[in-house]
């Protein structure tokens, strides 16, 4: 019997979540490791430290449900079940990439897995996600859409416009704001007049919650509540989840020596690393086995990407019009 299926359902859940968390963490660490070789010629925005949000939310979705992600979207892509090999190949610019080398790291997509794309223009994915929700409602498909967005994205006008419309039409969409306190190097204090975001969202009649304990379990529980209500016809919901970006904004490194933030900010988040927290709850042997499998899985994805062919220059003219 598969040890992952042993024990109570709680344990199964922990193992499943750990697998996802570890997979994403390891994947991004590998991306960071490979990056200096220049094999990945695409701007990468790592979500190391923030994975618990995507994993917590996506764990309560079905395969048919959809997620709209950002350029910092590796975590949500993988958490929703996006093809790992196609992700790495896309970063390598290969023909086997999830966008055939036409997206790059900032435009991941996997329609089969319900990953409906990402925009490199901040906030731009929000109304698009609303459109998917509208379609699902009209098609009575029962699908819910989750729209991930950063704290910076809430400053774009289309965010307010989208909230109003989604609420007006009671669309099945969960907005998840990953509030890591920064837009590139600019802290919230230079961008937000107040931090009363959830209060503001609530004025649209949208149930809105802030999660500040950095816990995957909390995220998962709140997302589950929202999604359950939504499937019963409740309309949109909103979660603001506080988190912290461990790496630099774009690129593979840490940047606590740059002066705009101090490593002290990182310390509490690192101490409460959700990957480690889950790891602690899993029997060491099983954990080691999972880790080993994940190493293989990720290595295999990189091998696949490396071995895949680049598109031929003549393919440039494909996919302009359909």
């Amino acid at each position: 019997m598969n040890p992952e299926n042993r024990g109570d359902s709680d344990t199964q859940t922990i193992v499943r979540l750990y697998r996802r968390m570890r997979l994403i963490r390891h994947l991004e660490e590998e991306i960071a490791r490979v990056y200096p070789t220049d094999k990945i010629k695409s701007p990468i925005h790592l979500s190391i430290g923030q994975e618990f949000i995507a994993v917590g939310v996506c764990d309560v979705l079905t395969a048919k449900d959809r997620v709209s992600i950002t350029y910092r979207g590796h975590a949500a892509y993988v958490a929703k079940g996006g093809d790992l090999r196609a992700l790495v190949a896309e970063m390598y610019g290969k023909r086997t990439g999830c966008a055939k080398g036409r997206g790059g790291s900032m435009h991941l997509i996997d329609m089969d897995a319900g990953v409906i794309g990402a925009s490199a223009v901040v906030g731009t994915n929000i109304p698009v996600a609303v459109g998917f929700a509208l379609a699902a409602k009209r098609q009575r498909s029962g699908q819910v859409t989750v729209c991930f967005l950063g704290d910076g994205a809430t400053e774009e006008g289309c965010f307010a416009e989208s909230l109003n419309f989604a609420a007006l039409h009671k669309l099945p969409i969960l907005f998840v704001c990953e509030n890591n306190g920064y837009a590139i190097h600019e802290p919230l204090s230079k961008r937000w007049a107040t931090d009363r975001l959830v209060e503001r969202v609530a004025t649209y009649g949208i149930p809105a919650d802030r999660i500040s304990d950095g816990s995957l379990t909390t995220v998962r529980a709140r997302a589950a509540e929202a999604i359950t209500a939504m499937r019963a016809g409740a309309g949109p919901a909103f979660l603001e989840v506080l988190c912290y970006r461990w790496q630099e904004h774009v690129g593979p490194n840490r940047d606590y020596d740059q002066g705009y933030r101090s490593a002290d900010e990182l310390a509490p988040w690192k101490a409460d690393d959700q990957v480690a927290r889950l790891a602690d709850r899993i029997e060491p042997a099983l954990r080691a086995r999972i880790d080993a499998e994940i190493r293989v899985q990720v290595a295999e994805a990189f091998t696949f990407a490396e071995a895949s062919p680049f598109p031929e220059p003549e393919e440039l003219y494909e996919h302009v019009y359909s």
Partner: protein
Amino acid sequence: MSTSTAEGRLLRYVDALQEAFAQEMARDESVFLFGLDVDDHKSIQGSTRGLLQEFGPERVFTTPLSEDAMTGMAIGAAMAGMRPIHVHIRMDFLLLCMNQLVNIAAKAHSMYGGSVKVPLVVRSMVGKSWGQGAQHSQALHSLFMHIPGLKIVAPSNAHDAKGCMIAAIRDDNPVLVMEHRLLYGTEAYVPEAPFEVRPGRARVVGPGDDITVVAISNMVPECLRARDLVAEVGISAEVIDPVWLQPLDIDSLLASARRTRRLLVADNAWLPCGASAEIIAAVLERAGPDAGIMVRRIGFAPVTCPPSPPLEAAFYPNPGTVASAIHAMVRPAAPAWQPDPERTRLSYQSSFCGPF
């Protein structure tokens, strides 16, 4: 609507549009139509008349004043398999949703490696006359012609209004339809059954030998009028309507210009980096240096559109100024000529009257 012929009934442009929506919405459940005011009693000058009653508020609905998000919403719905038609009562308002149109609608199919399509129709109307002024008068098609991934069509008559709209709705790409306020009341024979005027073919709307006049949108009827005016002094002008601006049927324009060796492009817009520049550059690039084609552009004056009547009149090209330009090109040695101002007055100038 009674005068039925083999080619259809005489129908107004606005009614032809309405018929296109009604027929396509009946045919295809995934088509929906939305935008500010589509469901009110004025129903966008009548172009959406009866659709709410026929198809219900799920498929015909107004929106908040949120052009940017509403465009994104339409794109998402299109990616999810629906066929939205988004209506803007002025083309100027597209400037509020350029990001979604250019950065997402135009690019999604490509930047997602072909895994999604965006079968979106964006309707927008060019406003003209009666003091529309700076922000209600722009024709911005060239901005969109610049961007790969978008299609653009500018029907100049009721027949094309229906046929192009149906083609746009059925197209799997984002299509921008540039309508013109002053064309709404014009009539043409329009087949009753659904039909498509697909991208790819310009149409000679008035044959001629001395000069090729490429006319866009509302400039088509105005150039036809200019053609009549110059005919009176013995000049034979060929007027061609490109119909679709992206893709553009350069071959037909080139063939005509090669023959007449004179090419005048009359656009319903500013000239710099405009559709007129594109047509001239594309024709001459292909014609080669020995073709000896004389070229000229005519369009909006290079200023912001003023509402004051005499300034507004000077801002727009008209059959008289087009006729003068034709004459100057065909008979460069002759003294400048202007048609009788009485004859250049357009019929719509007396029939169209404010406020909007």
